[in-house]
């Protein structure tokens, strides 16, 4: 690993050894610093707990009967724990349908993104052809385009094609991801070419080489791209909000953000729908935490 900044300590350390790469400073000698360090840690622990409060409050409210939510001042006490708000969500909204739409859209987009981006990344990495540099630059330039600036023409496109409020409209615009192509390309760059050469000697064509050699080796990249595409597509609000005009086509974010669920006092119901709306991704997060965090972490380095 190359370290960019050269400090006197770095130079002395390099001169000294090449040990295990692990972080963590040491310095227990100064008791004042120790106390300060402990206080600071305490502050961070307290803030972490504060960070959990909004979610905890949401859960708390969701289990209250509605009239218990309109007390002043607000209190954590639940007079009578009830699931009625959760039941009300399903009867007042099309949440079940939104789950299906979200899952369908997220999965299809993920699959299509992985397929198209890995193929393109492979081509840019392995294949030699005229204009390759141009294509590569064109795709990189695409990374700069903020999709929010395109909502108007995209809507118009689908409107003209009479495809608004269909799965086509929800899925298709979310598929092209230049950054995914770039990731795959860099990944394939790192794979020794010898494996494919061996395959070619055996008479394999480009498609077989891609399918049998490159793709299996790309599992880590596929995993990371899949997870992120899935999470981001699931959470996408603006485009489904525009593209889905009827309740039955909305994804969870669009549905929650657009439809007024229920009449009268609906605070517990709204909190219940928040919990239900977040649940699938929370599951994914809890189970795939390491992958997600590693993916994010890898983003920034080098």
């Amino acid at each position, binding site marked *: 690993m190359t370290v960019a900044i050269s400090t006197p300590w770095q130079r002395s350390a390099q001169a000294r050894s090449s040990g295990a790469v692990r972080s963590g400073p040491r310095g227990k000698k100064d008791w004042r610093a120790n106390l300060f360090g402990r206080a600071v840690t305490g502050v961070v622990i307290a803030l972490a707990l504060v960070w959990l409060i909004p979610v905890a409050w949401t859960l708390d409210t969701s289990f209250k009967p509605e009239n218990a939510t309109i007390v002043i001042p607000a209190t954590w006490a639940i007079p009578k724990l009830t699931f009625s708000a959760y039941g009300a969500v399903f009867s007042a909204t099309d949440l079940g349908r939104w789950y299906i739409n979200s899952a369908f859209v997220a999965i299809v987009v993920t699959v299509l993104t992985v397929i198209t981006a890995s193929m393109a990344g492979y081509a840019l990495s392995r294949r030699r052809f005229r204009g390759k540099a141009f294509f590569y630059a064109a795709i990189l330039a695409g990374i700069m385009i903020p*999709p929010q600036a395109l909502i108007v023409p995209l809507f118009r496109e689908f409107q003209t094609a009479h495809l608004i409020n269909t799965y086509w409209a929800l899925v298709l615009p979310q598929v092209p991801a230049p950054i995914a192509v770039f990731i795959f390309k860099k990944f394939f760059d790192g794979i020794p070419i010898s494996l494919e050469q061996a395959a070619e000697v055996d008479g394999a064509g480009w498609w077989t080489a891609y399918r049998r050699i490159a793709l299996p080796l790309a599992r880590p990249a596929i995993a990371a791209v899949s997870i992120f595409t899935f999470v981001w*597509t699931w959470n996408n609000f603006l485009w489904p909000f525009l593209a889905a005009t009827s309740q039955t086509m909305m994804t969870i974010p669009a549905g929650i953000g657009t439809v007024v669920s229920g009449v009268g006092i609906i605070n517990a119901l709204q909190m219940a729908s928040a919990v239900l709306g977040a649940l699938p991704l929370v599951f994914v997060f809890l189970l795939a935490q390491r992958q997600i965090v590693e993916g994010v972490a890898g983003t920034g380095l080098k």
Partner: protein
Amino acid sequence: MSIKKPSARTITAATPGPLEPAPPMPGPLNRRAFLAGAAVLGASLATAGCAGTYDVASGLTGSSGGANASTLVYWNLLSGGDGSHMEEMEAAYTKAHPGVNLESTILAWGNPYYTKLAMAIRSGSPPDVAIMHLSRINEFGPPGLLTPLSLDLLAAHGMEPKDFTPLAFSKAHFNGHQLAIPLDTHPFVQYYNTKLCRKAGLLDSSGQLPPITGTQAMLTVLRKLKKLGVTPAACDQVNDPATAWRLFYTLYSQAGGKVLADNGKKVVLDEALATKVLGFIYQMATEGLMNANVDSNGGTALFQAGSAAFYWEGEWEVDVYQAANLPFSMQPFPALFGSDVAQADSHTFVVPRQSSADPERLSQALTMIRALLGQSLTWAEGGHIPAWLPVRDSAAYKKLKPQSNYESVADRAIYDPPAWYSGSGSDMENYAGAAIGTLMTGGLNPQAAYQEMRQSFETLSKETVPV
């Protein structure tokens, strides 16, 4: 296998946005992750399975309710008390027509609702029936977004022009076609706390508040109420430009003023009249006779708690106060500037233009509308003046107090000035209401508020008309 991470520079613009995945990075694939994903999908499908039948085909072809022939899709923007009443009425309809599956969606009030409706219609997947404020007809009429309803067709479904409040029905007639069927008229009114008014010696022998005529009379009354130590009049404007607009427009129309002409292309706001009206509102604000430092929840709460003697708002809060057993009544908004007109709007039923004409669905839609109209008494309980005359003229409605107190206003209602950018919850109301609202808390003097209003109207009137 070592994985080379991408250089930082290409991650630059790959900021997570709605339409693109966050910069993903290689990491070891975990079977657990796959299982997790599968579990999630399974759970979603299982939960979804609990809630009805799903038609993926319709999701691909874009036919929403229409795919299922016996589903009627109905959109409205009625939440709160209105929403409960509408649900009651829908229930009565579905009970009488078990063969039809009514899919009713409530969307947020204001611009978001109309944006969604327009987009849905133009994209070919509109609801079968929708609620529309009558004042929005200049936005939806010209581009042909609504299905014209011939009088013969209406008659065949039990609805004739004579059955409706004439003013509302005629306003729903646009360019030679009947585009909307009025459900009600909902004017700006005055709520008054009878207990407080009695204490101030304002009530007459029958326990009612006699009509207050003229600005001086109003000021006198408000000052008397102020001596009781309560808020004389509450009127919200925080986050509520619509109410601010209604207060101004009621008084300005009473003075005979006009705002726009030539379908909104010309601004004819009269400076003298406007500043006179604004001056009166300003006086009430600065003299402490009117509290406008509340949002709609706050204003309702103030009146409900008995802390305000008068409440100036649309009539739809009546449910709330009755439920709280508040001693109150309602009356048409006082005639302070000459005439006794008041700002109002009407909820109407419209049949959005469908991509393909289907007489059967149209008939179903009209049947539903007729059924809901028949439930107008339920609707009137929520405070609205029914447009359906068989109910409005009925003894049962006249018995509804205080709802029937202001029933005559329906015939002298002043709707928002016609323009494509006007109507309930429109930009016009938002911009003008912002200026008026600030004046209502003393933040702008009348001249400044007038200038701001004028400027907003001028800007809007100059925009190229998109309809």
